[in-house]
């Protein structure tokens, strides 16, 4: 059973890896320390993928959302909000489980053996609400209202919080460009500290960024219960063995709620079910 579960997980990682490679396929950028400047960047990718990553060929939806909201000309982003609504309504947090490069990084980090891994803790459920606060404050309100003299708002989530931007964009670009190295300051140091904390916590806790911080996960989670692609539990077939809940690293019990906002649709519960009651 464990071998089958592990095989299934590596299959998912292969899909995640392929998707990450596809959406970061401008390999020349890594060699030259530049980013892709083509028209594909009109389009958003579904996962959290910094558009300042040298390989990125699409736009990060959270960065794009802040860019349009913070623009003096618009103040609401119908294009990006519509994209998030469409993707969310189609597959919910399936994106988190299968199509997010930063999710893959956290998945792999959690495989590092370490004593005292934490499944859950007191206040875990409450802390999971933090991502909604981060979404409303740093992605919507601050770029909308905290503006400069021209009425332009900064992407505050990217600027102050996002460790994906540091890992995928900041570190490679700074390593490859001497001019950028001379411009480093406290913000770069702060973002690297956040990245290191995220990396350390990812070894201890399964996907801490997705559970507590990610504004993209917060948006998709709202659509999880109504998304077109969803899980169903055949209550007649279910034998209430509890193996599915035990297999879930996001601490969801599929029998109670198969489309819980925290479910990233990794498929671990489906594989764990001995009577194939989850479809």
């Amino acid at each position, binding site marked *: 059973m464990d071998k089958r579960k592990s095989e299934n997980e590596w299959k998912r990682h292969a899909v995640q890896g392929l998707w990450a490679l596809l959406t970061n396929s401008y390999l020349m950028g890594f060699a030259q320390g530049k980013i892709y400047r083509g028209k594909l960047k009109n389009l958003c990718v579904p996962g959290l993928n*910094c558009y*300042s990553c040298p390989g990125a060929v699409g*736009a990060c939806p959270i960065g794009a959302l802040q860019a349009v909201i913070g623009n003096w000309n618009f103040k609401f982003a119908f294009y990006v*909000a*519509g994209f998030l609504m469409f993707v969310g*309504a189609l597959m919910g947090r399936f994106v988190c489980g299968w199509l997010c490069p930063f999710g893959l990084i956290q998945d792999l980090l959690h495989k590092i053996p370490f004593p005292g891994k934490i499944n859950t803790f007191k206040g875990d459920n409450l802390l999971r609400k933090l991502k909604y606060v981060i979404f409303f404050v740093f992605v919507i309100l601050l770029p909308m209202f905290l503006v400069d003299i021209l009425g332009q708002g900064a992407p505050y989530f990217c600027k102050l919080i996002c460790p994906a931007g540091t890992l995928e964009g900041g570190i490679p670009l700074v390593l490859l460009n001497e001019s950028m190295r001379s411009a480093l300051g406290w913000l770069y140091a*702060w973002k690297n500290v956040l990245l290191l904390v995220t990396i350390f916590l990812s070894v201890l806790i399964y996907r801490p960024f997705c559970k507590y911080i990610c504004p993209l996960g917060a948006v998709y989670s709202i659509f999880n219960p109504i998304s077109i692609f969803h899980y169903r539990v055949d209550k007649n077939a279910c034998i209430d063995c509890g193996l599915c809940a035990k297999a879930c690293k996001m601490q969801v019990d599929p029998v109670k709620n198969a489309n819980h906002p925290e479910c990233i649709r990794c498929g671990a519960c489906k594989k764990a079910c001995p009577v194939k009651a989850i479809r």
Partner: protein
Amino acid sequence: MRLFRRSSPCGICAAILGLAMMGYGIFRGEMPVVLEKAINICMECIGIG
């Protein structure tokens, strides 16, 4: 097709609404703002700006 028949009507409506919002956003010229941001190195994102 079976997947759509079993889907929540709210999900289908939200997907359609999402597409309509995307269309409206493109119509009112939001895409160039996204492109402009995405093709230039985002100093804030990488922790310099």
